[in-house]
């Protein structure tokens, strides 16, 4: 890499970018940076065929990939893009929507970083996030292009018809398997890039309080918060509320606890896990009669939908509104036979239902991964299943003679009960 001639365009590889994010980037590199940067698709077989790797870290796979890339191939140059400001390790991160000038500046910095040593991540991130007027215009253009891309992507794919008679959970499970197969195929294609663990393991952040404190987000900026706003409005107005986000829409009825939509599983996952601009969201009340007239293909439980969306929004991060030392209590178990089931959910529910306990104790005393504890909290709090508890506590735990046999039974049950998903 280092002996590459200066006049040769630098090869750029893009990883874990959704179509929505990748299309403008591809367009940019193919039309605006001729002679300076060019996209390469060969990096899948050999990482070193790319001079700079751009990784979208707004998905769990993306952040795992970036982490492993930085850890196992420190000689590579990595630029992260995200709606957040921080990136793993010493990587440089620029904020999405990616602005042309910020991207060019960041690429130059990454290019020079090796000679100069580590880049001051926060400083550059902050510089990159301070958009000038032309950049703001760029952002708006990018945003509308993203929406156009999203629409194109949705329309161009063959519409998958879900029969309304098929239970939503079954449809979701089928879509999920399909989604996982697509993911596996991608991994196979990039054999040399199989840096991330095939079974993404829970991140053990429970021994690092600083990291825990940083892992926070605000539900209002995500689909999770928008659904809750729509539920409140539907309840207040006594009628269904239609929510439109970009080109996707769904209708919520708070009284019936139902949601109608035709959003594909992976599209929903993508929408749920990315921050949503308030300006891209529209809520409108619908009369009861109008719901039937809307061309929705899926009817499902609002609680299951909200649980799923919240777990995806969290991705192991903690909601902004709770302290790690706040005692909490589960007021009802989530419907674990139907909601998106992720590892440790039944354990977390059982402990939180049994006695008041704080999140830190759950992680440290019960050796539960913070990633799943926080995701569970986010999903359960979103549905109102968790309350704060400020009363006295008793920490009495009795030894169970049956524990040995219970553990054996759990091992026997696990293959049946635990078709859980990594979130």
């Amino acid at each position, binding site marked *: 890499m280092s002996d590459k001639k200066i006049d040769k365009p630098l090869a750029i590889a893009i990883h874990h970018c959704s179509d929505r994010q990748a299309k403008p980037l591809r367009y940019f590199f193919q039309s605006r940076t001729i002679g300076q940067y060019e996209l390469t698709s060969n990096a899948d077989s050999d990482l070193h065929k790319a001079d700079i790797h751009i990784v979208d870290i707004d998905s769990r796979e993306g952040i795992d990939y970036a982490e492993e890339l930085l850890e196992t191939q420190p000689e590579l140059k990595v630029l992260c893009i995200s709606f957040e400001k921080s990136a793993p390790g010493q990587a440089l991160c620029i904020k999405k929507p990616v602005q042309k000038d910020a991207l060019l500046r960041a690429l130059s910095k990454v290019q020079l970083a090796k000679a100069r040593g580590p880049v001051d991540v926060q400083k550059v991130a902050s510089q990159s996030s301070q958009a000038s007027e032309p950049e703001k215009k760029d952002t708006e253009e990018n945003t509308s292009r993203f929406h156009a891309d999203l629409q194109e992507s949705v329309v161009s794919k063959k519409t998958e018809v879900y029969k309304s008679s098929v*239970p939503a959970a079954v449809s979701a499970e089928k879509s999920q398997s399909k989604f996982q197969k697509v993911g596996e195929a991608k991994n196979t294609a990039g054999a040399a890039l199989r840096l991330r663990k095939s079974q993404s393991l829970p991140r053990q952040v429970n021994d690092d309080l600083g990291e825990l404190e940083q892992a926070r987000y605000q539900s209002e900026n995500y689909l999770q918060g928008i659904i809750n706003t729509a539920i409140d409005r539907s309840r207040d107005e006594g009628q269904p509320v239609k929510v439109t986000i970009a080109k996707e829409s769904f209708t919520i009825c708070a009284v019936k*606890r139902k949601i109608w939509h035709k959003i594909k599983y992976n599209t929903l996952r993508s929408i749920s896990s990315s921050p949503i601009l308030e300006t891209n969201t529209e809520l409108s009340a619908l009369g009861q009669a109008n719901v039937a007239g809307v061309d929705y293909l899926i009817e499902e439980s609002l*609680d299951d939908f909200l649980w799923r969306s919240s777990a995806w929004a969290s991705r192991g991060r903690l909601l902004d509104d709770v302290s790690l030392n706040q005692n909490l*209590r*589960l*007021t*009802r*178990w989530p*419907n*674990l*036979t*139907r909601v998106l089931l992720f590892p*440790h959910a*039944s*354990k*977390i*529910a*059982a*402990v939180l*239902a*049994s*006695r008041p306990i704080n999140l830190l104790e759950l992680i440290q*005393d*019960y*050796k*539960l991964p913070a990633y799943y504890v926080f995701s569970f909290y986010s999903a359960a709090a979103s549905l109102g299943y968790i309350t704060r508890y400020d009363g006295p506590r008793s920490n009495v*735990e009795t*030894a*169970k003679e*049956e*524990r040995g*046999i*219970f*553990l*054996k*039974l*759990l*091992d*026997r*049950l*696990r293959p*049946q*009960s*635990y*078709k859980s998903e990594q979130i």
Partner: protein
Amino acid sequence: MIDHKIIITGPVAAGKTTAIKAISDVMHVSTDESASDMTNSTKSSTTVAMDYGVIKLEGGQKIHLYGTPGQERFDFMWDILARGGIGLVLLINNSAKQPLADLDFFIAKFRDFIAKTGLVIGVSKLDQNAEPNLDQYHERYAELAKKHGLSPVVPIFETDARLKEDVAMLLEALLFSLDTELSKQHV
């Protein structure tokens, strides 16, 4: 070697026999007879003594599954079957006329057993009858728990007794509820 048993109870046609069939490792033993009373309006045969199934564990240990007969006239069997049980799975048929009244009835009947052990509730046939919904079950159970001095929060899941994974999740939730310390030891 000490084996343990889990009791599966509930009203007629809640799916007790089906649930045991779904999860049992051995050919399940049933005492079904042709229904000769009001039951025949819901199904052709009904359990008159008990259903029995087994989950075999490593080391030769077993978990015995006992299903009680659904009709109240066989309630003398319930105490006999429940003796020595480690927990209760209560299945409620949501397509019945008064499923919440069934919940009241079975919680009251098994109150002492639940207080000493643990409880999970599976609501079957929610797809056939959406009301009462799970919210209503949780609310009603909370009232009953207060009245009978039981644990205020128990797992209540939508359940299709034909699905092994649904029955397995009920049992898993029961085990973690019975002993939360299991969380520390089970990966």
